[in-house]
């Protein structure tokens, strides 16, 4: 039996992905779970696993090609299986300058092999469409009436951006289309922007924009801040680090994660997700850690953190950070998409207090600032102490302010009685 391998969706907002690298070659024997390819999304690079056993019969999308989620990228099956000829979706060109070809245009001169399956990027949409509206590669997706009107008006259909399902060029697109100067045949030379030009957003920046806007528009945030006395935790940490003879060190952030994890075990409501008429509970705590990369922010999760000791968390976070920076492997799809609660830490920049944006569909995120020496009141005396501010951003649909305060005070008590971190 022949199995289609399709571009997977590695997050709700992922619409397309690039084959960064094939890890298997045509003819290789594949077992379910084998790493097939590295997929580059607008966030990061993820390894993709095989979901079927068999021989990798054919790779239909080459390395470096950007395709829509759901596009067939390879076939796995028995050596005698027939491979379907039809390719469901055309490849999206990497470059916007790639001219698109229209099937009813005069036959082009022999082109490089991939060209006949290439479409200009704006011909491929972000929404899935069940029906196949353009038959083979190389065709522009336009409705018949749109083509008819374009022909009547003398508009080159390939220059019209499509806004219909699957980015199909619709009647309205053609009717509202104004050819821009650079496409006009009036001989006007192209103007080159030198100053005050716009900066196109990277795909990662666009993804961050989408996710944060979605979060702030869908999820009603509120914020509760506690000041945590970190004196005992800092002493505990130095003692622990001295005792660790393998050279590893536990960071303040590791303790924060452990305290969040134990607090979530006690108040699992905050480890759920709002979904219309219900809260979806999660049996694992996958704790997201905001990591600032040069390209932008990602929030991969430490998976199953409720079962980890403080030292194990420390190792797991270090490993997560390395892989996020592309050292020693890549982040998995689950780590990038299955977080159940978030943490963010700007302590290294000296930040006192800040509030983070919840990563949908999580119920909350705890943002911590730097541990600072400050005057505190201890038994009626003002002494020098160490404090850290923690702010929870909570989804009001999941729980109310009092509940967030109780949860955060559990977090606070855990850090102020650090022996609890060893439980």
């Amino acid at each position: 039996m022949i199995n289609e391998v399709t571009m997977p969706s590695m997050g709700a907002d992922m619409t397309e992905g690039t084959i960064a690298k094939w890890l298997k070659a045509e003819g290789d024997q594949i077992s379910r779970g084998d790493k097939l390819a590295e997929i580059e999304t607008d966030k990061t690079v993820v390894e993709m696993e095989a979901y079927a056993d068999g021989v990798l019969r054919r790779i239909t999308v080459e390395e470096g090609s950007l395709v829509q989620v759901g596009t067939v990228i390879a076939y796995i099956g028995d050596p005698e299986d027939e491979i379907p000829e039809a390719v469901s979706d055309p490849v999206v060109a990497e470059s916007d300058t790639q001219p698109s070809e229209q099937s009813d245009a005069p036959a082009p001169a022999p082109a490089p092999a991939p060209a006949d399956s290439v479409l200009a990027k704006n011909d491929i949409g972000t929404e899935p469409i069940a029906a196949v509206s353009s038959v083979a590669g190389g065709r522009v997706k336009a409705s018949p009436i749109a083509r008819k009107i374009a022909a009547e008006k003398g508009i080159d259909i390939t220059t019209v951006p499509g806004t219909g399902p699957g980015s199909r060029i619709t009647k309205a697109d053609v009717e509202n289309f104004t050819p821009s100067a650079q496409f006009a045949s009036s001989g006007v030379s192209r103007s080159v922007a030198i100053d005050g030009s716009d900066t196109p957003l990277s795909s990662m920046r666009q993804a961050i924009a989408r996710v944060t806007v979605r979060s702030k528009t869908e999820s009603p945030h509120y914020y509760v801040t506690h000041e945590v006395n970190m004196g005992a935790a800092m002493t505990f940490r130095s003692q622990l680090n001295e005792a660790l003879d393998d050279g590893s060190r536990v960071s303040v952030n590791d303790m924060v994660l452990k305290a969040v994890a134990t607090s979530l075990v006690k108040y699992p409501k905050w480890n759920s997700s709002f979904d219309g008429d219900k809260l979806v509970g999660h049996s694992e705590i996958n704790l997201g850690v905001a990591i600032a990369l040069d390209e932008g922010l990602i929030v991969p999760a430490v998976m199953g953190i409720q079962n980890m000791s403080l030292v194990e968390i420390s190792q797991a976070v270090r490993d997560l950070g390395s892989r996020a920076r592309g050292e020693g492997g890549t982040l998995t799809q689950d780590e990038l998409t299955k977080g159940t609660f978030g943490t963010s830490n700007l302590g290294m920049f000296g930040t006192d207090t800040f509030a983070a944006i919840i990563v949908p569909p999580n119920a909350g995120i705890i943002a911590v600032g730097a541990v600072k020496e400050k005057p505190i009141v201890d038994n009626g005396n003002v002494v020098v102490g160490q404090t850290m501010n923690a702010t929870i951003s909570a989804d009001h649909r999941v729980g109310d302010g009092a509940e967030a305060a109780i949860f955060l005070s559990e977090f606070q008590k855990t850090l102020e009685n650090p022996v609890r971190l060893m439980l």
Partner: protein
Amino acid sequence: MPEILFREALKRGLQEALENDPRVFMMGEDIGEYGGAYAVTDGFLEKFGPERIKDTPISEQAFVGAGIGAAAAGLRPIVEFMSISFSLVAFDQIVNMAANLRYMSGGQINVPMVIRAPTGAGVQLGATHSQSFETWLAEVPGIKVVCPSNPYDALGLIRSAIKDDNPVIVAEPALLYGDKGNVPDEYYEIELGKADVSRSGTDITLVSYGYGMRPVNSAADSLEERGHSVETIDLRSLNPLDIETVLTSIQKTNRVVLVDSARRTGGVMAEVAAELQQRASEWLDGPIMRVGSIDVPWPYNRGLEREVLTDAGDVLAAAAEGYGM
């Protein structure tokens, strides 16, 4: 205009015919003593007597055959099935005989017979009593098939069906017998073979017939709430099929969702879709969208039956998928 029930509209049409034309008589299971499975012929036996209101045995093939003979001999029989699913046992009489007699006799023999039958699912009658075989019968040349969606059309169509000199199937959606609608006291007829543009709009055309008009109207309301102008077409007649009205509409709206409440595969809308793609493709602003009930035996379980039956959500999903509306 007075508001009356769908079953009352049918009753009015039948009663007029019985009163005005002595050649008209009725046959069927439980139409006399019992008053009809859906109470359409309630009181007829008392009023018109057993000569004209004939309770039959469970013998569809026999009483359709008797109807054909009576029609050929000059009477105007109205035959009732308890369910259009039971037409299956009489298919030889309907398809081979009734539909072909005029042609085979070189026009010497007409069969002016009406066959009435409740059709469709939704009333928990199980797999063998819930089907919609007007879709099969609509394919046969020589018989006409109509299926009203409201009391006004039910009365107008039954009047024309009884007057017509050909065999006419009147498929009556079982779910609609209790629906109310405005029906004027003044006499009117509805020509067989004419679709009705039941709502006029410019952005999308929704096409259905019979019970399917209920999800269509509901979906049209939803789409209009979102600011779209919706045209709805009730085919009313499946044979002859009024494709012209649909074509005209699509030249205006450029978008279309075809809605069967019968099973999707082989439904009437499959035929409509084929005609549209051949004759109107250059007017379309996207795929011809088609929805219908799921291709499974009709469940008895209420929840499952509703799940299988076409609803407004299916229509809206098709509009969203095909046209981003």
